[in-house]
């Protein structure tokens, strides 16, 4: 058994620096195991958020050697042993302490999204072929790694105008729900600012659930926004239809 050096950010949003810790490596060890070792042997007050330690709850997000990851799914043996492993908190959210960040912004965005509302008089039958694509979106464990890596939030600080990949995935799950009766394209265009996304796919690259965020959620939503707001032909069709049957 050998040792690894962890460089862990210690501190608050005002002041902080990385601190080195030596951790013995066991077979199959993940970064979160190493953090637990640090907690129980070297720094009992090291703040780390975690729950299930099985990649199902999405609590233990951090940036390991510059890449946003779930620490419970990141094996120590994927890194060269002779170099220190740097573990920093998610950059796009304000640090509370050490590796714990304030992710409350996400919960505020979520509140803006109208929930599932069944169409009037639906029969509760749904077919697998209709829900396959929605089930992909519902795999999301809300680790917020996509929010963290998205440059619109990370580098351009558009938190006020932009919802972020996580919530496009959520809206996609609602918009493509076979029995949902609401239209959320207006919300996407305005409050959630889907036009700010330039589909550079970092969200997809970091998703631990392998959700094809960009290709299967964001781009189809962009196409739906085009349908409703940017496509002159479809606009014309709508106008003619509305003229024929006056609005309810």
């Amino acid at each position, binding site marked *: 058994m050998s040792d690894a050096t962890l460089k862990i950010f210690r*501190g608050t949003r005002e002041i902080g620096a990385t601190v080195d810790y030596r951790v013995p490596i066991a077979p199959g060890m993940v970064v979160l195991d190493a953090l637990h070792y640090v907690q129980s042997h070297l720094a009992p007050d090291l703040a780390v958020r975690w729950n299930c330690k099985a990649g199902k709850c999405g609590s233990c997000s951090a940036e390991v050697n510059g890449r946003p990851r779930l620490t419970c799914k990141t094996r120590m043996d994927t890194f060269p042993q002779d170099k220190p492993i740097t573990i*920093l908190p998610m950059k796009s959210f304000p*640090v509370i302490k050490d590796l714990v960040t304030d992710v409350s912004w996400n919960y505020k965005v979520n509140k803006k999204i109208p929930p599932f509302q069944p169409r009037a008089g639906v029969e509760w039958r749904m*077919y697998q072929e209709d829900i396959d694509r929605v089930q992909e979106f519902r795999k999301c464990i809300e680790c917020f790694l996509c929010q963290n890596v998205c440059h619109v939030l990370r580098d351009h600080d558009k938190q006020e105008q932009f919802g972020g990949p996580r919530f496009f995935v959520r809206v996609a799950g609602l918009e493509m729900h*076979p029995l949902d009766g609401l239209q959320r394209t207006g919300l996407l265009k305005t409050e959630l600012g889907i036009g700010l996304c*330039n589909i*550079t796919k970092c969200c997809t690259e970091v998703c631990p659930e392998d959700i094809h965020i960009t290709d299967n959620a964001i781009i189809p939503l962009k196409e739906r926004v085009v349908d409703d707001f940017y496509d002159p032909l479809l606009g014309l069709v709508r106008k003619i239809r509305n003229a024929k049957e006056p609005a309810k």
Partner: protein
Amino acid sequence: MASAGDTRLGRAAGQPAWWLQVVPVILGLGAFAVYATLRAFEGAYFQWGPYLSPFYSPLIDVHHKYWPFSPALLILGGPLGFRVTCYYYRKAYYRAFFFDPPACAVTEKSGRVYRGETRFPLILQNAHRYFLYLAVIFMAFLWHDAVRGFLFNDGFGVGVGSIVLLANVSLLSLYFLSCHSLRHLVGGKLDCFSCAVAGRARHQAWSWLGALNEQHMLFAWISLFGVGLADFYVRLVSSGAIRDLRLL
């Protein structure tokens, strides 16, 4: 936003060099742009026997009755617009040429105003589907050209050029069929396949296109090189640099 800011000097540690992803894109797109520009303006060596360079198809006003410049310039806008507004190429050039972002979790230059695709000119990206409609016409001509590539003066035959043109149009078709907008129009826009008219067929078509869509990036690149090479082959033969090898 307050974050661990200055203390993050270790950020780059252990992260693979981001420019490794960007440089091939710059070289690839750059080389094609230079070659295509030169060839488009050249206005010569685009035809030989039954072969027509894809850069010049459909061939309009070849005798300069109305248009004094290279006939390629009349039509290049179509394929160019299709590729420029393509969801894959957008990702590629936003990253490689705009550094927005240069790579995932790599900090961008600060202080620049970022508006994503919400303002002119980038808001025009939403017109991708109209270039898709145009592309249908181009695809028809290119298939016509490919078939004609087998019809020599002495009747049916197969030259290397026939195969080159057929391969080119096949790759272009894969790129065309894997388009995100096409996937949307064919079925993606439906909320409920089983509730829609011809829903089962549309679901099937949507699934197939979806499978192709996963390789959209691959098709984008190989069809780009394919079309360049096809033109280059026609130019070589047409300028007399080499002779077309007749196989049958």
